[in-house]
């Protein structure tokens, strides 16, 4: 009951094209995350689905019905805004019941639904407060509650957690995940934070300048990025991208040594994630360098290695690693986990 499909959707502001033809099918009950750097068009795309921006070209279907030029009120979607967008002059209960009230649902029925939603979100004791008397996390829950009450075809979330502090963000992320399990509703979730995307999504849509760079499950994106852009965007610390050449089952780092690989002819760069590099004694790995900074994080330790002309390489080691800044080390890459990219930035 909640499939959404986009067909060649474009958005133009005057002569500027912001969304460059998106085709996407979202299945009923799926949680899809739009992720990408700031300004890539995530919010715009979401708002076009919601009806808050016109669709300049292309078509939108919800549940198989063409909704391209319907106003938001007809689309039956619910949206949760980054700034919560609660009605400050109404109590929590009124906020949550407002959409039902405008639809003419009788007061008793509204009350029932609101109480139900409040229970799911642990808001029962705050129902009579005004939004300004709530903490950030509670407000965000009210905003979600407001959507739940409507029993919408799909939920749209626009960076709902970005105004919360780090600890709360982790907690709310978990709550949204649980909510999705429970409601089993279609959800589209926009964020620029790849951690959120990875942890929440059934499928991730990575957007790059108004175009889809890759669509896939988190694991697919992490392990088989189709472009350098996706490879660098997903994962923290970033994947190290180093120039290389590949010939006949052998890759060779520029200004470094090489190793075995299969296929991948024509690749110009290889990508290796920090956790797939091990520190070996000098000269033993694919390249050598000097540790410039050590960041101790308790469980892990990040080494920032100055590898001469290859640039800086980030290595992840365990927290009890004995290496300290200034040490001269060699780095060994896990051959099975390397990604290779061609000159056009696409994986080969």
């Amino acid at each position, binding site marked *: 009951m909640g499939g959404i499909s986009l067909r060649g959707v474009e958005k133009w502001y005057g002569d500027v094209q912001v969304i460059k033809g998106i085709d996407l099918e979202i299945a009923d009950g799926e949680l899809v995350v739009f992720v990408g750097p700031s300004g890539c068009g995530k919010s715009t795309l979401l708002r076009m689905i*919601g*009806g*808050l921006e016109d669709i300049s070209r292309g078509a939108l279907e919800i549940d198989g019905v063409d909704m391209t030029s319907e*106003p*938001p*009120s007809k689309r039956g*979607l*619910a*949206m949760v*805004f*980054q*700034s919560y*967008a*609660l*009605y*400050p*002059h109404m109590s929590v209960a009124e906020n949550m019941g*407002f*959409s039902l009230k*405008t*639809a003419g649902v009788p007061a008793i029925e509204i009350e029932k639904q609101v109480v139900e939603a409040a229970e799911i979100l642990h808001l029962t004791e705050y129902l009579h407060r005004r939004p300004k008397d709530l903490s950030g996390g509670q407000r965000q829950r009210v905003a979600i509650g*407001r959507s739940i009450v*409507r029993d919408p075809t799909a939920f749209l979330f626009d960076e709902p957690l970005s105004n919360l502090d780090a600890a709360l963000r982790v907690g709310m992320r978990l709550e949204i995940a649980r909510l999705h399990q429970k409601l089993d509703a279609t959800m589209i979730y926009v964020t620029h934070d790849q951690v959120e995307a990875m942890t929440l999504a059934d499928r991730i849509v990575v957007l790059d300048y108004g175009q889809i760079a890759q669509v896939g499950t988190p694991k697919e994106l992490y392990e088989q990025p189709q472009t350098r852009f996706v490879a660098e965007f997903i994962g923290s610390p970033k994947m190290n991208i180093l120039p290389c050449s590949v010939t006949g089952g052998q890759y060779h780092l520029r200004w470094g040594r090489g190793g075995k690989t299969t296929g991948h002819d024509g690749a110009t760069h290889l990508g290796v994630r920090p956790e797939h590099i091990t520190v070996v004694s000098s000269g033993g790995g694919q390249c050598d360098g000097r540790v410039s900074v050590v960041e101790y994080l308790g469980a892990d330790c990040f080494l920032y290695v100055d590898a001469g002309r290859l640039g800086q390489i980030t290595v992840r080691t365990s927290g009890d690693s004995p290496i300290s800044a200034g040490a001269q080390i060699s780095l060994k890459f896990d051959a099975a986990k390397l990604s290779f990219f061609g000159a056009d930035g696409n994986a080969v």
Partner: protein
Amino acid sequence: MKLFYWGWLTGAILGALWMLTVATTIAVVMSFATGEAFRPQLWYCTLWGLVFGRPYDRPRSLLINVPLFAAVMGYFSNYQIGSLAFDADIFSPSAILSILTLSLAFLGGMRIIYGDLPSGPLTRHEFEDAVIRFLTGFGYIFFTAIVAIPFYVMVMTSLKNQQQLVANPLDFSLDLSQGWGLFRSYVELFRDFNFGTYLLNSLIISVLTVVITLAFSIPGAYAVARLRFKGQALFSRSILLIYMVPIIVLALPIYIAFSMTGLRNTFVGILLIYPVTTIPVALYMLQGYFRGLPYEVEEAGLMDGLSRLAVIWKITLPLALPALASVSLYVFMIAWNEFLLAFMLLDDPSKFTLTRGISSLNSSEIPRQHLMAGSVVATVPIMALFLGLERFMTKGLTAGSVKG
């Protein structure tokens, strides 16, 4: 500049300046309050200020210093070489009062002005801090004086009679034994000059102007602030442009048109024209407010199934209530204070607004305490509103930009 960076020198100069300020202030206040002659003496002020204005020894309390200083000052004044000269006897209450206040204000003020000023060499910071403290004190006195004096004169004149004022224009002391007789001119205004009617007229016209203005400008402002259409940018600009057309330029053709259509001298005519002078202001203010409201809340309303108009009514307006209050107050003030159009368009005393009524009091044949009483009657309601709702008013003024 470096020359002045010495505590004793800076102190002396500031002392002289402060003494001048204090003495002038007290002379003016005492003159206005009692009608007796008080004069600051320029050269003696400078002299005594220089002599006594050295960085203050902090441990000694004002309690001892003020009487001491007052005694010295009183002694000087007795020989007409004090900072303050007066004709009254040195032991008369007003003389004693003025000398005591002078001492307190001088010493107390200097104590604040000096702060931690050392008497030796000063750093730039210390020097500037002292100068700024002096300027601040001077500023408070100066601004309070220029604002309060005209209003003081207005109120006091309305309570006196012309003959007393002609005899001594400085004597604003009130003869309280008259009791209610003090308010004679007010009684006459309301009894003989129809000020009751004028007050009512002004009230009705101002309130209606507010209502009409809001009715027109809310939808307009919303459209300009929120809706996307061709010419939106042009609009928000041209609102300001209308603001800049001088009323006198419009008043001329309006006068002609109203004369020819018989709208002169009618409330309808006034109510046609007042809102139009206020709508651009209101439009400009409201669109600013509307822009400042979080758009996402309105979008939430749209997502919740409301139409645009319902969003305006159920969400934007409740949120903009404080703004509406500011705008209403500001428009009310404009309408209440409006003079020119009322003056040109209203002839019939039964339709006069207050300002128009006051201008008819400006006649050789009518004693001027009536004129001032009329001014007080017009000023008090707007002042009361202003003080009561200062927050909204100030906001209204700031947003109302520079309509003047």
